[in-house]
């Protein structure tokens, strides 16, 4: 099963991705994270309006196998959360980079994007 890592996205070592749309970051988890977690059973997302620093705990994702924290890949203010996933968290797995998005954040430190991994670096990191 080949996992994909779209080249236009930014990645973290904790397996989040950032899809940039203007100065809004769409945050989700990577195909590798989805594969590692297995059947996702629960997502806990932050409230809209809250400010997070890069690396702060943004939420929780649980699967039958494990509990995993979601970390803010960049600093910013939460502008939207994907509420529909709370009742249907399994949808993250079918389209992690699209319908499986978790949180949108208004960037407060856009320069942090430079510190995230490219798709190639992330792929090398996860050894896939």
């Amino acid at each position: 099963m080949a996992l994909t890592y779209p080249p236009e996205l930014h990645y973290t070592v904790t397996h989040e991705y950032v899809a940039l749309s203007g100065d809004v970051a769409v945050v989700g988890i990577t195909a590798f994270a989805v594969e590692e977690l297995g059947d996702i059973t629960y997502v806990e997302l932050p409230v809209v309006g809250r400010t997070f620093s890069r690396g702060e705990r943004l939420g929780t994702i649980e699967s039958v196998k494990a509990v995993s924290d979601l970390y803010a890949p960049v600093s910013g203010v939460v502008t939207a959360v994907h509420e529909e996933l709370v009742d249907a968290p399994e949808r993250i797995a079918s389209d992690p980079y699209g319908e499986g998005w978790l949180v949108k954040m208004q960037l407060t430190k856009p320069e942090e994007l430079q510190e995230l991994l490219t798709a190639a670096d992330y792929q090398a990191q996860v050894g896939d």
Partner: protein
Amino acid sequence: MRYSPLWECYQNEAKLTEFAGWMLPAQFAGLTLEHESVRQRVGLFDISHMGQIELHSAAVWEHLNHLVPTDLRQLAAGQARYTVLLNATGGILDDLIVYAHDQERATLIVNAACMEKNVAWLRQHLPSDVVVAPVQQALLALQGSQATAILQALTTDTLATIPRFGHCTIHTPWGQVWVARTGYTGEDGWEIQAAPAIGQALWRAWRDQGVTPCGLVARDMLRLEAGLHLYGQDMDETVTPLEAGLGWLVDWNKGDFLGRAALLAQKRQGVARKLVGLMGTGRRIFRPGYPVQAQGQTVGRITSGTLSLSLGRPIALAYVETPWTLPGTPLTVQVRDQELPVTVVKRTFYTRPQ
């Protein structure tokens, strides 16, 4: 790392995991499909990692009877019993199924992680005339309401008359295999012991027929829904059958057995904690070690938990202090920063439709 004799049949189609020193399939097509296949139709498991021990002795039943709390002397050829091996303090060394072949021969199927410990224990505690022989054959489990029909299609030997926990040798197109109407899923089904080549042939034949292969993740949910214990999680050497909800295994009238005095003392005194079933709401899974609370005090710990696909709710097993173990008792489970409500229920969360 050890590999099953069936390894080459599925190594390219399974997500793998390490378990008790073995590399085993965690998952094939996915938990939901595998679970549904077993509950609705049939599923196929490789359980070759489980420990297989044969005992031979003219007095095998008399001797083995001393190491378990269950009376095995009533076991006729072709019958089997679920029981536990106890140490002198009544602690559970392992849980196992004992199969009677005849007056002089028994097969024990034990947990993979306990195999070496059990062999050493049996050699140490059985008289030297009892031969304790580890066996390494392929073991498959075919589980679900269609299992009997699928197995029957391979043999002219009659299976329908074999009761639950019954077993026999049957003839298949590839040779003789030993089959038992036992399992770890809460469904009707069979466990099959076969020479490696025959085991592979059976696996491939059933796969070609479209039987769903299932991994350890599905197996764990199926057993938990059925209220079946997992050794090492729901019980170990520090708990007795009375605490583990396995008091029904103890035959107080069978005469002495290892651990009996300790169990009797505990019975007279009353157990301080018991294994209970817990059912919650929502989607969070209660995981091993999570505290169980009553009135703000910790009164227990989770040992196994999952989000049951059969019930659509979180279910768990937990050791809880006895005053809080009556069915219907409201408790809470501490899930990280949240305290979530649960109710004490019977451990058989799922019972198959009759």
